[in-house]
């Protein structure tokens, strides 16, 4: 293993990086059900978690996996599950529960093509909208999308930090390409990695109000088995955590759980721009497609076309304002993604202009050439 200060350089896959980063982030409970192309995350963790005193359990299905990680999180362990398309669909019910009961958990979806069993071994980015709207009701969502193995490591840690800080389920939307890609990664020194833990109550048990309206909209948590006897429910509840039918209290709850992400969205939203200052054409991309977009941009620049890249790392909340701001300067937006235009639709809403789409839904990656062709077509 090469050493670089206290960093180490390794070759690993996105799935391995995700599993290792989760342990570094403090994850000590994993429950999952195998599904291609995510299974390596479970496999690595079944070996690694016992080594660090954590718990690995292969549950009977994804619904159970999601339920178990919520239970474990409420008992004090940072918890995670990993799945792909059909399994992600099964998890929706309990993802909703985690939103409602404000339980920090991380859900990895290594995307494959769908609907249904779809394309088990092939990549896709078609669960972007399922991540946003998969479960019923009004609830906030944080979803991140890494492009490289390095990103996967970093964004897995950040996903835990977000979930802990805001007490929300956080979704890591990988895709098969990133999950199975073997590439170089610099693993930072453990001291360099910022790790955030959930806000724990400092109130004594008799004063503890589980969903207290605090100034920052994020109520501090207590854990089961620590002398705090409180109730958690998926029903609409008041500050005390018990079901309520009082319209005022119901309204307050829904608005707060949505507001707590809305008001911190500037801390959450993350994108990177490249060569946008003088650009006339802007590529908007994410996940593995952004890799091809970047390459296409370089080739287009080499032939004198003014094109830049807006790469989205946090898909939800969506960077509407940033896109709207640049839209005055940009003549055309091109959105390459492995679906039929899920993020393109959001870009259109944000910029109020029609985007050029580059889509593939045949299980093959979008090549830089395909994007380049669109760039050339637009620039004439």
């Amino acid at each position: 293993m090469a050493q670089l200060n206290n960093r180490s350089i390794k070759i690993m896959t996105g799935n391995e990086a995700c599993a290792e980063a989760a342990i570094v982030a403090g994850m000590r409970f994993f429950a999952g059900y195998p599904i291609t192309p995510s299974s390596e995350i479970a496999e690595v963790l079944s070996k690694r978690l016992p080594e660090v005193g954590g718990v690995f359990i292969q549950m009977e299905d994804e619904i159970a996996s999601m339920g178990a990680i919520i239970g474990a999180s409420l008992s004090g362990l940072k918890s995670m599950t990993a799945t792909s398309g059909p399994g992600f669909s099964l998890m929706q019910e309990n993802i909703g529960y985690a939103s409602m009961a404000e339980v920090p958990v991380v859900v990895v979806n290594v995307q494959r093509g769908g609907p249904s069993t779809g394309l088990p071994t092939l990549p896709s980015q078609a669960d972007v909208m399922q991540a946003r709207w998969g479960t019923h009701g009004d609830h906030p969502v944080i979803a991140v999308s890494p492009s490289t193995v390095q990103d996967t490591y970093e964004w897995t840690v950040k996903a835990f930090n977000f979930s802990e800080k805001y007490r929300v389920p956080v979704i890591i939307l990988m895709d098969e390409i990133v999950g199975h890609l073997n590439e170089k990664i610099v693993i930072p020194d453990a001291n360099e990695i910022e790790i955030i833990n959930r806000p724990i109550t400092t109130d004594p048990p008799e004063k503890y109000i589980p969903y207290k309206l605090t100034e920052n909209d994020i109520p501090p948590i207590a854990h089961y088995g620590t002398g705090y006897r409180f109730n958690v429910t998926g029903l609409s509840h008041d500050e005390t955590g018990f079901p309520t039918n009082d319209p005022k209290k119901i309204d307050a709850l829904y608005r707060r759980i949505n507001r707590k992400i809305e008001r911190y969205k500037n801390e959450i939203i993350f994108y990177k721009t490249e060569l946008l200052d003088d650009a006339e054409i802007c590529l908007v991309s994410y996940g593995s497609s952004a890799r091809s977009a970047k390459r296409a941009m370089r080739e287009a620049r080499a032939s004198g076309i003014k094109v830049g890249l807006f790469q989205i790392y946090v898909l939800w909340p969506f960077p509407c304002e940033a896109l709207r701001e640049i839209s005055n300067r940009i003549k055309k937006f091109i959105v390459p993604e492995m679906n039929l235009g899920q993020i393109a639709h959001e870009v259109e809403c944000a910029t109020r202009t029609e985007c050029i789409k580059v889509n593939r839904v045949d299980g093959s990656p979008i090549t830089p050439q395909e994007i380049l062709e669109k760039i050339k077509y637009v620039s004439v």
Partner: protein
Amino acid sequence: MFPYKKYLRLDKFPHIWCTGCGCGIIMKAMLRAIERAKIQKDDVAIVSGIGCSSRTPGYLDFNTLHTHHGRAIAFATGVKLAKPKLKVIVVTGDGDATAIGGNHFIHAARRNLDMTVILYNNHIYGMTGGQVSPTTPFGKRASTAPYGSTEPDFDISILAIAAGASFVARSTCYHATQLDKLIEKALLKKGFSLIEVLAQCPTYYGRPNRLGNAVDMLRYYKENSIPVETAKKLSEEEKKGKITIGVLHDIERPEFCEEYQKLLDRVQIKHS
């Protein structure tokens, strides 16, 4: 009088259950069992799904978790594995545990995870208005079986035994005094334990099937129950239509948390 108040969240009353419902009888038996087993309130976590029976934890002053329909055992698995010192009790209905939650039920039994499942079997979906359940007996009426159920029903206790539970007992709401002793045994048993309690739902099971009021239904339980010891001496024919009550199954099997701890010890020693 037993100090129920010590365990209740008094401000959550009145409860939502119908007059004559069996849910309260089981809830009280559970509290007596916890007291007899000398388990501290802070050390108990009660997890439920959705249904009339699943509303029980809301009234009780423990660590309580009210989850989705059918999912209580899945959530409870996480709670238990993350905090093995907790006594985890799952309160569930027949629909909750054996229809939508059937998969979690049999797998928790198979793993022999240390938890006690108290299953209120009222043969019907109470909360949603009396639809047919996997335990509605053949021919009985329900709001979705207006001509009588055409499906055979589950014997939940046998199901749990077959799946690997280490302790299984059955009782009824009539046998309230026996019930707390059975629950106590289950709580003290290491491994997956099930207490199946036949509970009257006079509103949605009793009425369409003309079984009378709650008292009539309790009388039925009284007159048609036979202790396991007696049942053993009877032929299948003689047992037909009878409810066998008592401890049906009590064996020793490796428990999941203990096995996992052994694995941790092994792996961590190897790496230190």
